[in-house]
């Protein structure tokens, strides 16, 4: 899709969508959203970028193979479950640590959040893998 208009707008749109996806990820615990939908939006952003700029460029931009990102996601989620072994709690028990930042904001880190980030990476990685592979499979893109 080598139109000037699309090619010009796509990077900005993709970047905005990526930002938005992180937002959706982080607020999932309290409002709709969460790792899955966020990962999906992120992958959609990547797909738009890939359609506009081509797969090669996307792969260059990502550095890592997206499937490795997916592996990282599951690893992270699994790890978040195993952490509870250190406090003599069962697998996947939610653990919470709250920091107070200099400006008074409370920052809560938790294994459920870590878990959800794992979900995010998995979904993002896999959907990107599929989109890029399908895109690449097709020689001579339009």
């Amino acid at each position, binding site marked *: 899709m080598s139109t000037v208009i*699309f090619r010009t*707008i796509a990077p*900005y749109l993709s970047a905005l969508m990526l930002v938005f996806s992180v937002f959706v990820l982080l607020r999932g615990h309290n409002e709709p959203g969460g790792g899955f939908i966020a990962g999906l939006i992120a992958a959609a952003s990547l797909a738009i970028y890939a359609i506009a700029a081509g797969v090669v460029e996307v792969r260059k931009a990502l550095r890592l193979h997206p499937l490795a990102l997916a592996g990282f996601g599951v690893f992270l989620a699994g790890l978040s479950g195993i952490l509870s072994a250190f406090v003599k709690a069962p697998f996947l028990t939610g653990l919470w640590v709250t920091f107070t930042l200099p400006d008074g904001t409370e920052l809560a880190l938790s294994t459920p959040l870590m878990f959800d980030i794992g979900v995010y990476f998995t979904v993002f990685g896999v959907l990107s893998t599929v989109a890029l592979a399908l895109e690449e499979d097709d020689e001579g893109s*339009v």
Partner: protein
Amino acid sequence: MIAELHLYLVGTILVIGAIFSCLAAVGILRLPDLYTRMHAASKAGTLGSGLTLIAIAIFALDAGVALRALAGVAFLLLTAPVAAHLLARSAYIAGYKPAAITRINDLDPDRKSNSD
């Protein structure tokens, strides 16, 4: 009183937005070809959805929600014309002829052979 006015405003914008959307839909049903239908969809449609989002922005009385709603409108304004452009272009290249009443056509049919 201000609160009442606020609700009236929200309701009004909401209904106007819905009317725009509805007319856009009427448009895509009544207009003769793809290109003319796209006028309805891209303009009235964007307006309709945008207005309902603005209604939320006003209704919420919350800076965060309002800004998000406006961001949503911005996204719409960013994407809708591009989508319309891509669809129109693709359809044209694929050979979708404009309706018979179209008088002028500056797009040379030969162009499409090297368009992609």
